[in-house]
């Protein structure tokens, strides 16, 4: 009986370690600031830069770049867009040995922080048998916004979301121009009855795109975050990115999967 118990404990430890890779890194973060923000705020931002650096060192940074150059005779116009994303399957579990100092560089105040970060990388291979696919395609798409909510004169979207097994599905929208830290709940499935293996987004009709009044630009880059879960989870209506990650990473990774649908809306 004692032997079985030992074997059980060893197995749990082994499973935990094979699912998540843990690493400690010492990093520095800095943020220069003027009179418009407080020292505390600048140091918080310095800490965030340090956290980003820690994630970058352990799991890298995903960068993509698109350029278009159009020339008429010798008159050329270059359009360039670079996307950078951090933290896929990476979580900062804790920080320690935090030190900060304020220095002056080139006449500007700079908050410099150093700390050790404990980072957990969730291995994606452990979750190969639970995934989300869509018919949206891999390329980022551009949609024309409707002139108003009622006009519905812009482009439309209808998408089929397929899960590798019947599950719950939660769709959240990230609209950085309105609020860069929050995810807004768009819809959750099933709307009625049992969990299914595939859902239509939107369930009926087609989805239209809008550009908010607050947006002074002519375009908005956004994404939809799809979260599939074998168990019902309460992620709330609007949720902070950090809170969402904390909630999700408390659930075993074999029980949930996520996918991003990136697109750009133009006026």
């Amino acid at each position: 009986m004692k032997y079985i118990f030992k074997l059980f404990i060893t197995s749990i430890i082994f499973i935990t370690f094979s699912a998540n890779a843990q690493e400690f890194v010492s990093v520095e973060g800095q943020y220069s600031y003027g009179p418009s923000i407080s020292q505390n705020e600048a140091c918080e931002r310095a800490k965030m830069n340090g956290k980003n650096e820690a994630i970058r060192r352990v799991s890298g940074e995903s960068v993509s770049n698109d350029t278009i150059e159009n020339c008429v005779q010798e008159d050329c116009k270059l359009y360039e867009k670079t996307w950078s994303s951090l933290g896929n399957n990476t979580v900062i579990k804790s920080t320690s040995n935090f030190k900060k100092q304020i220095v002056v560089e080139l006449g500007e105040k700079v908050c410099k922080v150093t700390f050790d970060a404990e980072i957990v990388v969730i291995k994606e291979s452990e979750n190969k048998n639970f995934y989300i696919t869509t018919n949206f395609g891999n390329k980022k798409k551009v949609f024309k916004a409707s002139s108003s909510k009622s006009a519905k004169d812009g482009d439309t979207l209808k998408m089929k979301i397929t899960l590798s097994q019947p599950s719950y599905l939660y769709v959240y929208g990230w609209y950085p121009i309105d609020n860069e830290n929050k995810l807004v709940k768009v819809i959750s499935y099933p709307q009625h009855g049992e969990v299914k293996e595939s859902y239509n987004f939107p369930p009926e009709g087609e989805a239209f795109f809008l550009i908010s009044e607050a947006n002074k630009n002519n375009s908005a880059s956004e994404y939809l975050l799809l979260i599939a879960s074998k168990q019902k989870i309460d992620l709330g209506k609007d949720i902070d990115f950090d809170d969402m990650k904390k909630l999700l990473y408390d659930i075993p990774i074999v029980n949930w999967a996520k996918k991003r649908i990136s697109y750009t809306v133009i006026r």
Partner: protein
Amino acid sequence: MNIFYKVTLFLFVYIFLNGCVTNTEVAEKPIIQSREAIVEKEKEDMIWAMPTWCENLKQEPFQIKACGIAKSSNLQTSRTRSELDARKQITKILNNQCNSSEQEETVDGKSVFKSSLSCETGDVNVKNVIVINRKTERVNLEFVTFTVLSLSYR
């Protein structure tokens, strides 16, 4: 005589000092600089500020190096963006697919040459990148940061 002398002296001093007053009614001749001239001047200032280690990047085996440059009125933004610029260059070295098209049209008897070049890298995971050198300079009223990043792939 004494009064006449005093009045003359007063008038002389008044006229003399009046000459020192700036004339606000005459508008200064505006200095009009063309957009091209401004860009050219900015470019020149940047080249002067550019350190030699950024200008002549010394490539080494099993390393990809790039020097990112960014200008901003905000010190933090210039530093963050210069790093991103270097990372973007490394991404382009690792994976960049381009398509180009050229065409010649005749408009009012004159031939017009049009060309288009579009490139995309796709999502590239950039890892093991370290900052080798970094320098921020004040150029006019703005900060210009030069950052050399190196990616080791051995």
